[in-house]
C-alpha cells in the first residue's frame, strides 16, 4: 500500500494538518502536499477510470504531465472539472471527486468495455457508428457521451464567483522554468544588466535537481539553489514569480503566462488567476524534461508510476508508493529511485534493466546496497487489477516468456526522458532527433525568428537536450548571456556554476517490452493513458494505411485531450514509425500548440465579465430613459430606448402611443448617438464631393443637405444630413452605428489616397447631446423656451442656426426624419440632460412624448425614408432605392461612381424599392420573399422581391412595408404574393409608392 513515511518530505510541514475529501471520503494531509501526494499518503491509489474502457487508473506522474489523476475539484459554483491532482496544492476543505466513474470509482459499469477491448480498437467509432445515419444523433452519440469523457461541465446557470485579470509586462529576457537551468540563465542574464522575469509553474524553485541531488560549486544542489535565489532576489532588475506557467509563445516575442494566485488559498483576497501578457525581447525556455513510460502489458494498472515520480513523492512529500517496488528501466536515472527507496528503508526486490550491459556507477551503487539487478530483461506482464500484485519478468529480446514472477505492490518505470520542447515549438522552432539519447531536441539552427530574422526563443538545460547537471548549467549560462546581449544588455556576468556528477551509461531505446511482445500483450500495453490508446491501436492504424502522424493522432486519439500526449507522444510515434518501417525523424511529431497545459476560461476572459463584460455606451440622457420605462435596443455598443413603456402598457401599445402623440402634438427623441464628423480645410469641398454621391461643395453656409455615401464598390454605406458650417467646414451626420466607421473611412482615404489634400476631420459625436423636437407643436415649445428665432422665416426647412434656447448654447437644425415639423437641437453633452429636462417641462402643456427607435422607424417608413441596415445590406446601390435624385450627374467622380456603371449594377432586373400594402391590411412578415412562377435548379421556388421594412402604421391604421421588387416601380397597383415562413401560406400585397404619408411634404415645411 502507499503510505506516508516516518521521515522525509522536504516540501511538507508535518506540524500542519489539512483536511480534505475525495470521492466522498474524508482524509488528512499536510501543508505543502499536492492532492496527489495526499491521496497516496492515504493509500488512495486509484483516482479514476479510463476514458474508453473504464479501467482503474492511478497516479502516474508528479507534475503537469499527469494523464490519469484528473478530478472534479470543488462543488457548486466552485466546481471545476479536469483538474490535475499532481498540480493541485492541498488546502483545508478541498473537495474532489473522481471523473468518468458510474456508479462509483470502485465498481464501475463501464468497465465491461474493457472486456470488449478487442472490439473497441482504433477507429472503432468511425467504423461502427457510420450507419444508419439517423442513429448517430439519437442512439450512438447519447450513449457515447454517457460512457466516454472526462470531467463534468458546471451547471449552465452557474456563475463563477472568482475574479480574474490580465497584466501586461515588458521585459528584456523572460526565463520560463525555475529549475537549476532557469536559475542559472536568469542569474547570468541579470548580471549583465538585462531586465529579467523568471517564472516557475510550481510553488517551489530548483526543479528536479532538488530531488536528484548533485554537487554545484562545491555545495549541495539544495544549498546552491538557495544561494542563487538569494542572489537573484537582491538584483533589482530581476523579478521572480512562482505559480506562473509559461503557457504559450507567439509572434513578436509575445508570451502568455498563467498565474494561479489563490487556487491553493481559496479564501485569500484578490483574483484567482492572472493572465500575463508578456512582451519579451528574448525568451529562454528552461522547461526541463519529462520521463517516458515503458510499454509493457498492464502498464496502466494503479501502482505503476514513472520512476522519477516515485522518487519525487518519497523525497518531496515523504510518501511511498509501495513497500516492494520493482524498478524497470532502460537508463541509469531510474537507479536513483531504487537507491532512494532502499535508503528510505523500503524494499526493492529487483531492478529490471532492459540493457544487456546494465548501467554505470549508479548500478554499482545499487548493487552495493544489495539490490538485485537483472540486465537484458523486461516486464512481460503485470498482475493485479486495481493494484499491482506481481510482475512477470522476461528477456527483453524475446516474446515474453516468464523467467521469474516477482511479487511487488509498486512498479517504477523509466523509458528515458523527453525534453519539454513545447514552448520552443509554439512559434515555429524546429526539432532534431538525438539518436544517442533517443529524443527530439530543439534545433538551434531553426529557431523561432522575429521580425529582424533573429531567434527570439532560446532553450536552456534539459529542455535543450542537456541531461547532465554540469552541461545543464553551462548551457543555461551561455544561453542567459546570449539572450541578454541580444536584448541589449552590456554588462558582464560572473562565472557559470560548475557541477560534479556521476557519469551515466548510455540509455537504450525501448519502444515495446519485450521487443517481440505477442498481440495479447500489445493489446494491454498502453501508450496513452488518458485516451486509452495502446500499442496495438497505433499498429492497427499503420496497418490500415495511416502514415501521417497527424492523421494517426486523430484516428487513434493518441496524444489528444487535456494532457496533449505529454507522456505518450514519443512512444506513440516511435511505435508508428516501427510499424511503418521508417525512422522516427521521418515520421516526425504532431504539432505543439499553446497552451502548455490547459488554462482557465476565466483567465482568458480576464476582467471582461458582469458589468464590464462589454462596454455599454450611454448618452447624457441615459439615466432618464432608464427610470422612465425604456425598453432597450442595442445599437452598436449603445443602448437606445426602443420605446418608453408606461405601467400597464405593452411595448407595442407604447410604440403606437408614441407615434400618434408625435404626429398629433409633440415628440422628443434622444438623437445623441448619431455620428457627427467635422470635415475642414481648403480641399474639404472637393473631399466631400468624393465622399458623397451628391454635390456637397455647393451647399451654402447655413444650409443642410441629405447625402449618401457609398463604398468604392458602389454599395450604399451610410447616409445622413450634412450641414455647411463655414467656408471650409462641413459637419457630417452619420448613422448611429456608422460614426466610427465613417470617420475611419474618411481618414483612410485622406491618409492613403489623398494625403496631399488639405483636409482635417474630427469625430465630435460625443461632444453634443442632440434632441429631435418633433410634431406640430415643435416650434411652440421652442418658442416657449425662448431665445433664438425659430420661425419659418428665420430658420427655414433644411437650414441650421446657432443661438440660445432657455439659456443653453445650441445649434438648431430644421431637419425631419419623421415628416413632421421638426428641429434637431444640439447642446454640449454635459448640458444634455438639463436641456432634455427643460424640454419635458416646457412641453408638458403639449403632452410632450419622448419616443424610441421603433416610433422613429415607423414614422420614417410612413414617409418612405430608407434606413441603412434595413433597406441596405451591403449589396444595395442607391439606384435600387430610387435615390437617383441624390446622385450627382455633374460630378466627374465620387466613391462608387465607377462601380455603379458596371453591367451588373445597371441591370434593369435589379430589384427596386417600392411600398407594399397587404390587401387585408395585415403586417407583412419581415424579410418575407415575393414568390414568382416556377422553381430554380435547386428545386427552390423562384422569387421576385423581398420585404425590407414592415410595420403596423398607427397613423394609417394598417400594415405598411417597403420592399425590393423586380421591376417594382413599373408595377404600381399590381398585387403579388409574399410567402410566410412556412413557404406555403401566401399573403397578397399591392405594390404602391413607398411614401405613405404626406407625399407633398407639407407638414414638415410649415
Amino acid at each position, binding site marked *: 500500500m502507499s503510505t506516508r513515511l516516518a521521515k522525509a518530505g522536504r516540501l511538507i510541514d508535518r506540524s500542519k494538518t489539512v483536511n480534505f475529501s475525495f470521492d466522498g471520503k474524508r482524509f488528512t494531509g499536510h501543508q505543502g502536499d499536492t492532492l496527489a501526494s495526499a491521496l497516496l499518503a492515504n493509500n488512495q491509489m486509484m483516482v479514476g477510470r479510463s476514458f474508453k474502457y473504464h479501467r482503474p487508473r492511478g497516479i502516474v506522474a508528479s507534475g503537469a504531465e499527469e494523464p490519469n489523476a484528473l478530478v472534479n475539484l470543488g462543488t457548486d459554483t466552485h466546481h471545476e472539472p479536469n483538474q490535475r491532482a499532481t498540480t493541485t496544492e492541498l488546502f483545508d476543505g478541498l473537495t474532489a471527486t473522481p471523473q468518468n466513474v458510474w456508479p462509483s470509482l470502485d465498481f464501475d459499469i463501464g468497465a465491461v468495455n474493457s472486456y470488449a477491448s478487442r472490439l473497441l480498437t482504433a477507429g472503432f467509432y468511425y467504423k461502427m457508428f457510420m450507419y444508419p445515419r439517423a442513429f448517430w444523433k439519437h442512439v450512438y452519440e447519447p450513449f457515447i457521451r454517457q460512457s466516454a469523457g472526462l470531467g463534468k461541465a458546471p451547471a449552465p446557470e452557474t456563475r463563477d464567483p472568482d*475574479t480574474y*485579470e*490580465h*497584466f*501586461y*509586462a*515588458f521585459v528584456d529576457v523572460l526565463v520560463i522554468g525555475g529549475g537549476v537551468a532557469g536559475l542559472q540563465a536568469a542569474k547570468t542574464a541579470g548580471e549583465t544588466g538585462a*531586465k529579467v*522575469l523568471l517564472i516557475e509553474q510550481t510553488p517551489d524553485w530548483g526543479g528536479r535537481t532538488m530531488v536528484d541531488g548533485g554537487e554545484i560549486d562545491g555545495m549541495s544542489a539544495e544549498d546552491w539553489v538557495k544561494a542563487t535565489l538569494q542572489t537573484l532576489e537582491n538584483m533589482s532588475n530581476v*523579478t521572480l514569480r512562482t505559480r506562473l506557467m509559461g503557457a504559450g509563445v507567439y509572434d513578436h516575442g509575445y508570451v502568455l503566462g498563467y498565474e494561479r494566485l489563490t487556487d491553493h488559498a481559496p479564501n*485569500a*483576497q*484578490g*483574483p484567482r488567476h*492572472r493572465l500575463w*501578457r508578456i*512582451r519579451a525581447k528574448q525568451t529562454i525556455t528552461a522547461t526541463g524534461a519529462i520521463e517516458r513510460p515503458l510499454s509493457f502489458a498492464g502498464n496502466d494498472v494503479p501502482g505503476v508510476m514513472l520512476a522519477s515520480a516515485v522518487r519525487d513523492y518519497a523525497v518531496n512529500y515523504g510518501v511511498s508508493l509501495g513497500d516492494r517496488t520493482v524498478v524497470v528501466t532502460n537508463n541509469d536515472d531510474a537507479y536513483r529511485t531504487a537507491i532512494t527507496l532502499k535508503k528510505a528503508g523500503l524494499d526493492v526486490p529487483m531492478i529490471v534493466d532492459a540493457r544487456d550491459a546494465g548501467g554505470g556507477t549508479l548500478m554499482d551503487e545499487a548493487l552495493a546496497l544489495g539490490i538485485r539487478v537483472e540486465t537484458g530483461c523486461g516486464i512481460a506482464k503485470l498482475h493485479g487489477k486495481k493494484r499491482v500484485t506481481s510482475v512477470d519478468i522476461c528477456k527483453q529480446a524475446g516474446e515474453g516468456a516468464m523467467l521469474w514472477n516477482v511479487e511487488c505492490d509498486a512498479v517504477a518505470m523509466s523509458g528515458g526522458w523527453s525534453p519539454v520542447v513545447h514552448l520552443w515549438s509554439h512559434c515555429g522552432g524546429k526539432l532534431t532527433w538525438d539518436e544517442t539519447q533517443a529524443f527530439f531536441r530543439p534545433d538551434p539552427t531553426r529557431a523561432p525568428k522575429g521580425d529582424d530574422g533573429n531567434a527570439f526563443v532560446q532553450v536552456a538545460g534539459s529542455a535543450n537536450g542537456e541531461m547532465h547537471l554540469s552541461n545543464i548549467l553551462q548551457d543555461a549560462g551561455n544561453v542567459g548571456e546570449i539572450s541578454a546581449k541580444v536584448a541589449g544588455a552590456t554588462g558582464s556576468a560572473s562565472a557559470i556554476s560548475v557541477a560534479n556528477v556521476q557519469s551515466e551509461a548510455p540509455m537504450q531505446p525501448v519502444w515495446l517490452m519485450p521487443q517481440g511482445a505477442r498481440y495479447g500483450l500489445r493489446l494491454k500495453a498502453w501508450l496513452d493513458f488518458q485516451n486509452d490508446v495502446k500499442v496495438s491501436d497505433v499498429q492497427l492504424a499503420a496497418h490500415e494505411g495511416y502514415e501521417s502522424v497527424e492523421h494517426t493522432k486523430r484516428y487513434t486519439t493518441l496524444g489528444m485531450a487535456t494532457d496533449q500526449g505529454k507522456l505518450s507522444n514519443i512512444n506513440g510515434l516511435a511505435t508508428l514509425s516501427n510499424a511503418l518501417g521508417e525512422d522516427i525523424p521521418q515520421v516526425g511529431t504532431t504539432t505543439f500548440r499553446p497552451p502548455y497545459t490547459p488554462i482557465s476560461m476565466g483567465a482568458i476572459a*480576464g*476582467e*471582461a465579465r458582469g*458589468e*464590464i463584460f*462589454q*462596454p*455599454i*455606451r*450611454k*448618452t*447624457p440622457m441615459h439615466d432618464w430613459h432608464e427610470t422612465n420605462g425604456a425598453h432597450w435596443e442595442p445599437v452598436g*455598443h*449603445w443602448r437606445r430606448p426602443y420605446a418608453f413603456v408606461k405601467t400597464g402598457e405593452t411595448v407595442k401599445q407604447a410604440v403606437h402611443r408614441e407615434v400618434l402623440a408625435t404626429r398629433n402634438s409633440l415628440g422628443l427623441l434622444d438623437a445623441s448617438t448619431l455620428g457627427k464628423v*467635422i470635415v*475642414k*480645410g*481648403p480641399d474639404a469641398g472637393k473631399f466631400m464631393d468624393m465622399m458623397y454621391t451628391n454635390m456637397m461643395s455647393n451647399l451654402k453656409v447655413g444650409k443642410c443637405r441629405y447625402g449618401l455615401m457609398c463604398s468604392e464598390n458602389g454599395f450604399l454605406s451610410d447616409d445622413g444630413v450634412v450641414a455647411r458650417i463655414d467656408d471650409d467646414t462641413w459637419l457630417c451626420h452619420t448613422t448611429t452605428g456608422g460614426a466610427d466607421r465613417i470617420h475611419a473611412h474618411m481618414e483612410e482615404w485622406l491618409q492613403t489616397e489623398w494625403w496631399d489634400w*488639405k483636409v*482635417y*476631420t*474630427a469625430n*465630435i*459625436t*460625443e*461632444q*453634443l447631446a442632440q434632441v429631435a423636437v418633433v410634431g406640430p407643436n415643435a416650434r411652440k415649445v421652442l418658442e416657449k423656451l425662448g431665445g433664438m428665432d425659430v420661425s419659418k422665416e428665420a430658420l427655414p426647412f433644411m437650414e441650421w442656426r446657432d443661438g440660445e434656447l432657455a439659456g*443653453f448654447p445650441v445649434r438648431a437644425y430644421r431637419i425631419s426624419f419623421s415628416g413632421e415639423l421638426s428641429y434637431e437641437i444640439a447642446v*454640449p*453633452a*454635459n*448640458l*444634455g*440632460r*438639463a*436641456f432634455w429636462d427643460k424640454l419635458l417641462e416646457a412641453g408638458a402643456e403639449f403632452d410632450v412624448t419622448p419616443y424610441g427607435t421603433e416610433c422613429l422607424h415607423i414614422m420614417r417608413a410612413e414617409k418612405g425614408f430608407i434606413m441603412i441596415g434595413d433597406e441596405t445590406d451591403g449589396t444595395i446601390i442607391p439606384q435600387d432605392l430610387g435615390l437617383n435624385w441624390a446622385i450627382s450627374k455633374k460630378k466627374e467622380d465620387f466613391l462608387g461612381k465607377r462601380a455603379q456603371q458596371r453591367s451588373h449594377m445597371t441591370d434593369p432586373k435589379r430589384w427596386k424599392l417600392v411600398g407594399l400594402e397587404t390587401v387585408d391590411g395585415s403586417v407583412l412578415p419581415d424579410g418575407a420573399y415575393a414568390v414568382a412562377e416556377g422553381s430554380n435548379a435547386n428545386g427552390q421556388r423562384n422569387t421576385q422581391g423581398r420585404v425590407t421594412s414592415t410595420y403596423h402604421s398607427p397613423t394609417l391604421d394598417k400594415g405598411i412595408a417597403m420592399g425590393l421588387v423586380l421591376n417594382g416601380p413599373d408595377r404600381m397597383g399590381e398585387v403579388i404574393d409574399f410567402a410566410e415562413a412556412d413557404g406555403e401560406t401566401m399573403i397578397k400585397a399591392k405594390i404602391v409608392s413607398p411614401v405613405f404619408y404626406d407625399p407633398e411634404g407639407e407638414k414638415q415645411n410649415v
Partner: protein
Amino acid sequence: MSDLATALDGASFDGLVKVEELHAQGMITLRGDFGDPGFVTAVTGVAEVSMPGQRGAIVDGRRGLLWMSPDELLLLCTYAEAPILAAKLDAALAGQHCLVANVSDARACFTLNGAYTREVLAKLAPVDMSRDSFGPGEVRRTRLAQVAAAFWLTSDDGAQIVCFRSVAEYVFNLLKAASAPGSEVDFL
C-alpha cells in the same frame, strides 16, 4: 453653469489606488502642421505651454498640450476657458489650414493616485508602464480593455485618463476592478 453634469458626477473609488472622475476638464482638439512655425507659435501662444515632442505631454498647472498624433494635439484648460481659447485659436490660426474643436464634453476624465497607479493601468492597457519606459511628460493613446483611451502620468504615482464620455461608466468600473484590494501584482 449649474446645469453642468459630467458623465458620472464626480464618482470616486478607493482601492489599490484612488480613482476619481474629474468634474470638468476643458479639452480642445487641434489639428495642423507641426512643421509650420506659424502653427506652433499660435498654439503655444494661446496655450501658454511649450510644444510637446512625439508622445509628449507638457502639462503645467491647468494648461497642457498633449501630442496625440503627428498632426493632432490636445489642449488642456479649464472647462470654462475652452470655448474662449477655441475662439482665440481660430483667430490666431486664421488663414492657416487647421482644425480646432472644443471636445470638453465629448470625454470623461479620471485621475488615479496611489503607489499602484502604474500597475492598475498595466492591467488594462498594453503599455510598458515601468519607470524606465514611461514617466511624467509622456502621453499614451491606447486602449483600456475594450475602449479607446489616453493617459499621462501627473506624478510618479498619479495619472490622468481621458476616454469617451459614453463609456465613462465602463471605464470607471474597469478601474475599480483593476484596483480591487488584494490584486496587487508587485511587478512594476
